[in-house]
């Protein structure tokens, strides 16, 4: 990944840092500085809890270049507790089959390594099933 882009996206990818709109209280991820709900300025940082549920999921067998190492892997639409939906891989999947509605929580994991062992390691959010209490 290009270095400037890496740095721009770092907080989002490592810690799910988005924005909250000071006018309508809408939670925004990824951050975009203008609220998509009410249209006003929204630059207040907001760190999401990382809790959410599986909205849908798919297991990708034909992986694009850079992602083959992990294939087949499961990608999900995760609806965060606070509202926004994100696209992320699911990880630490045990025997229990993935289901729509399954509660998940965010973890920071390696997404891919660019250009073999010498390239930038791209870390980011993945989600794992919440352990039952």
């Amino acid at each position: 990944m290009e270095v400037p882009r890496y740095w721009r996206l770092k907080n989002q990818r490592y810690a799910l840092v988005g924005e909250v709109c000071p006018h309508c209280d809408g939670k925004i991820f990824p951050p975009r500085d203008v609220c998509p709900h009410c249209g006003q300025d929204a630059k207040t940082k907001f760190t999401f809890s990382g809790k959410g549920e599986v909205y849908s999921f798919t297991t990708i067998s034909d992986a694009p270049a850079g992602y083959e190492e992990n294939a087949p892997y499961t990608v999900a639409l995760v609806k965060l507790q606070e509202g926004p939906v994100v696209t992320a891989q699911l990880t630490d999947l045990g025997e229990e089959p993935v289901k729509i509605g399954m509660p998940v929580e965010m973890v920071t994991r390696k997404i891919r390594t660019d250009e073999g062992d010498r390239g930038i390691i791209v870390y980011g959010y993945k989600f794992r099933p919440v352990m039952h209490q």
Partner: protein
Amino acid sequence: MSDVVIAGIGQVPVGEHWNTSLRSLAAQAIFAARKEIPDLEPESIYIGNSLGSMVSHQSNLGSLLADWSNLLGVEGTTAEAGGASGGAALRLGYLAVKSGFVKVAVVVGVEKVSDTNTRNLDRILSYTMDADHEAVPGLTPAGQAGLVMRRYMEKYNVPQGGFAGFPINAHANAVYNPNAMYRKAISREAYDKAGMVSDPVNLMDAAPLADGAAALVITRSDMLPKNYNHPVIRISGANIVTDTLALHDRANPDEFRAAAISVERTLTMAGKILEDIDLFELDDAYSVYAAIALEAAGFAEPGKGWQLAQEGGISLKGKIPICTLGGSKARGNPIGATGVYQVVEAVQQLRGSAGASQVKDARIALTQCWGGPASTVATHLLEMV
């Protein structure tokens, strides 16, 4: 403002053109279209192409293709909207001719995928999604379709194989299309045995990516020569609607609102109702998208689009024929060119020259191509006048 008509059509067979470059593919299609209407001199060329800069390492096709198709000096620009690039190019051509500023225009869709390997192509295709937030986590366009298909199947209780009718119909219609990539019918057994691409999307659910180029010569109706010997086909409706690029940014990821709004506006502009449509060249890049396109247009209730395919409702003799010459699944999916192939095929139907794949008495056709999961929707309505 006068009527905009399609005066000439041309296409290259969809497939793997190892020996033909991006520029040559486009030129061939343009020459073929112009051959139908040699007396009209195009003043502009509108190009639909999505991946040229990344696969072929070639940008600024406006200048290159104008020169390469012996139209040196004309206005030339490229419209890029992922899989809707072809429809977007036609939209621009339509606006130019309708406005009166351009009298004759060429619209060409061209795509070359065979210049790179599959894994690299998949990576490049990911950039037609949200690069930062969908591609980086490892999602692919087939993955997006998988997410949509799983939701749909669970929500509407669709059994395994519920979408098989779409690829089966597409292949049956391509058998007599000399420009189609795959011209063999497929069976339900073949569908059931197909390997997974992105569970639950299997190989038969996903249209094959290929090289292709298709072109139109569009003009004002009063510019057609006296001896013009084809039925006159008018573009009566045209628009583009966008939605969030990322599937996850949708207000409701289950609804493809842009597709519905686009059809509504097209019908209103053309002064038509749904019942007037004789055939629908919709976006079947993935079988679930075809079902949703039918629902969004209003041909089926939400959750029932897949049943139309089961009951023969989409066949050439059905209630609403789709993919009449193979669609993206069997004719092939040359991404940025697909939108123009759809229009070329619709014109063949309206002219009555679709041979064994002819829809009887076809007079009004709807064409619609999508960028991604209806993130960009370009719809056109064509009618015989």
